[in-house]
């Protein structure tokens, strides 16, 4: 092994090690880029070992940060965040839950199905997992627990559905992936639509099956009112604002009013209007929402900065080359290599979060996939499903964490673990179906573009 390859491996290994110290991930990434530049110089100057990295090379990071600054597509990110926060503050989501729950009140498993449907609606308006999981937990868990639902089913449903937002368009993750791979955001949004719907459908089927096989786990609440016209009307009325918002975002893209990037701004504007109409938005609330947008934007972009520095130095040390060689050197054939990449992504999801994986790993493996002759949109959607699954994987994951933060005491960590396992299996099933039938991804974009 060359000295530089040793440095590349050490850099990656140290990164995994250091993030477990609890020091912020972003600064571990950025700091290691600087430290390993210094190390590379020592190796080359003092030990006479070729590394290919010095201060001049690593200073390209300034130009790379500038490319993040003047990136018009990434403007969508803070706007989606703002939209999600406004949606929460306006109480639209809460109202939706209360009214639709009454609609399904008398169906077995109806409450869990309500949570699933609302989660899918939320997913189509925003792409922020934390917001969805916490909202669904706070709105959906108390009624399910009160009705005597199986706590594992309740927790699993909330976790799994809450992560769908990252897959069902619009989604920050897909915007970021399209940007990293220089592909059309629209292609990815359309490509992810059926896979997202498929997974949502699988969840609902699983809940229905659970309700039929174990009726005692999903009792119909005693006080469920009969479904009459008033209930239907209320449910429809409560769905209207959310539907309007979906229309604002997806519609403005579809009707050519706005680009996908601008649609995020249009969606945030829609959420602002809804909040104003519902008189839920005081000056103070708006101020707080904006500050929270800054904090969330801050931690995401800090990771961007750290990751762009880290991956530049890693690339300079030949890290890319190492991965290419390793993946292709195994001679697993195209599908074997693809499965290996997806498996590694899934495993990485145990320890890294989606931003780092998207920024560091995706650009490394995408060229390999293209070389193998696979469709890049299809692969990226598969990759996204893999990442979405990793939010759910015990021992840890964003979704589990968010749920733990707000769940009632009886929903402890072992309950959540047991609850998400069936949904992780459903994710693997869904991923397998997408793998077998690429048309699930590729059909919609091809239809939309008239060929």
């Amino acid at each position, binding site marked *: 092994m060359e000295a530089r390859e040793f440095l590349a491996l050490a850099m990656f290994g140290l990164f995994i090690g*250091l993030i477990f*110290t*609890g*020091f*912020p*991930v972003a*600064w571990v990434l*950025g*700091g290691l880029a*600087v*430290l390993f530049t210094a190390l590379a110089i020592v190796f080359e100057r003092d030990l006479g070992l070729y590394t290919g990295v010095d201060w001049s090379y690593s*200073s390209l*990071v*300034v130009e790379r*940060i*500038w490319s993040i*600054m003047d*990136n*018009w597509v*990434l*403007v969508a990110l*803070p*706007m989606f965040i*703002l939209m999600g926060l406004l949606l*929460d503050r306006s*109480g639209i989501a809460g109202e939706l839950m209360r009214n639709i729950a009454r609609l399904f009140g008398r169906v077995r498993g109806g409450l869990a199905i309500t949570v699933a449907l609302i989660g899918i609606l939320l997913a189509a308006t925003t792409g922020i997992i*934390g*917001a969805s999981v916490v*909202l669904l937990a706070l709105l959906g868990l108390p009624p399910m627990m009160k009705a005597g639902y199986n706590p594992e089913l309740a927790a699993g449903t909330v976790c799994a559905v809450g992560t769908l937002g990252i897959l069902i368009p619009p989604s920050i993750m897909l915007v970021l992936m399209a940007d990293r791979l220089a592909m059309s955001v629209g292609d990815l949004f359309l490509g992810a639509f059926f896979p997202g719907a498929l997974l949502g459908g699988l969840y609902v089927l699983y809940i229905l099956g659970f309700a039929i096989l174990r009726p005692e786990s999903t009792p119909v609440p005693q006080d469920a009112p009969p479904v009459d016209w008033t209930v239907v009307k209320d449910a429809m009325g409560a769905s209207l604002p959310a539907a309007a918002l979906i229309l604002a975002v997806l519609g*403005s893209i579809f009707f*050519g009013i*706005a680009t996908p990037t601008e649609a*995020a*701004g*249009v969606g*945030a*504007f829609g959420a*602002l209007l809804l909040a104003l109409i519902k008189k839920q938005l005081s000056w103070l609330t708006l*101020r707080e929402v*904006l500050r*929270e947008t*800054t*904090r*969330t*934007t*801050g*931690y995401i*972009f*800090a*990771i961007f*900065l*750290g990751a762009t520095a880290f991956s530049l130095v890693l690339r300079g040390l030949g890290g890319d080359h190492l991965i290419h060689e390793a993946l292709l050197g195994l001679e697993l054939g195209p599908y074997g290599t693809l499965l290996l990449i997806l498996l590694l992504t899934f495993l990485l999801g145990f*320890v890294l*979060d989606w931003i780092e994986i998207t920024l560091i790993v995706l650009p490394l493996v995408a060229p390999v996939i293209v070389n193998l002759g696979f469709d890049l949109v299809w692969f990226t959607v598969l990759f996204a499903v893999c990442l979405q699954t990793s939010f759910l994987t015990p021992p*840890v994951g*964003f979704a589990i*964490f968010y749920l*733990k933060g*707000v769940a*009632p005491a009886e929903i402890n960590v072992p309950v959540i673990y047991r609850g998400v396992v069936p949904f992780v299996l459903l994710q693997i099933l869904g991923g397998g179906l997408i793998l077998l039938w690429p048309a699930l991804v590729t059909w919609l974009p091809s239809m939309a573009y008239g060929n």
Partner: protein
Amino acid sequence: MAKTRLSGETMSELGSVKAQTDEAPSPRTAFTPPQTPLSGPIDRVLEKIGQKLSWVWLLLLGVIVLNVTLRYGFSSGRIELEEAQWHLYAIGFLAALSYGVKTDSHVRVDVLSERLSHRKRAWIDLYGILLLGFPFCAFILFYSVPFVYESYVTDEVSISAGGLPGRFLIKLALPIGIALLALAFFSRLLRLGRFLFGPTHLREKP
């Protein structure tokens, strides 16, 4: 338990509903080192800057809506407005870096570290800032100076028809943002120092 977590502040973004539940303890045991005579004023300045610059998102929203309206409604897109979008966004996210350190809202993987004592966590933060945070800031600052200067002396403008002039101004946001980040690290370093080496009553166990 959770290894990847967001800070308490980020959690509170979801908070209007969260506040309704009584228990819902914060998932992380908050560790806030004590203020010092110097870090206090620094933190207040950083807080003010973060708060004021948060309005940039509302401005950005307005510019996007204006641009969409002009282009779709009046067939008159303005490249100035397109560029203003990413100018505002860049200012916003660069300002957010230091605000994130000040409010301790950067992502930490604390599955192991949350079991450590506050003293051990303070040591980790101290070494992290000295060995990782500061070198990163120094590196970016050092190399962004010629980057901005070059833009200034060449009187760089946008390469687009009708784009914005004075490009060095937006490029200047990078060193300013990183300098504020370094300042936020410095303030936290002072506080960690006081916690670790200061009066013993500040050193109690969590």
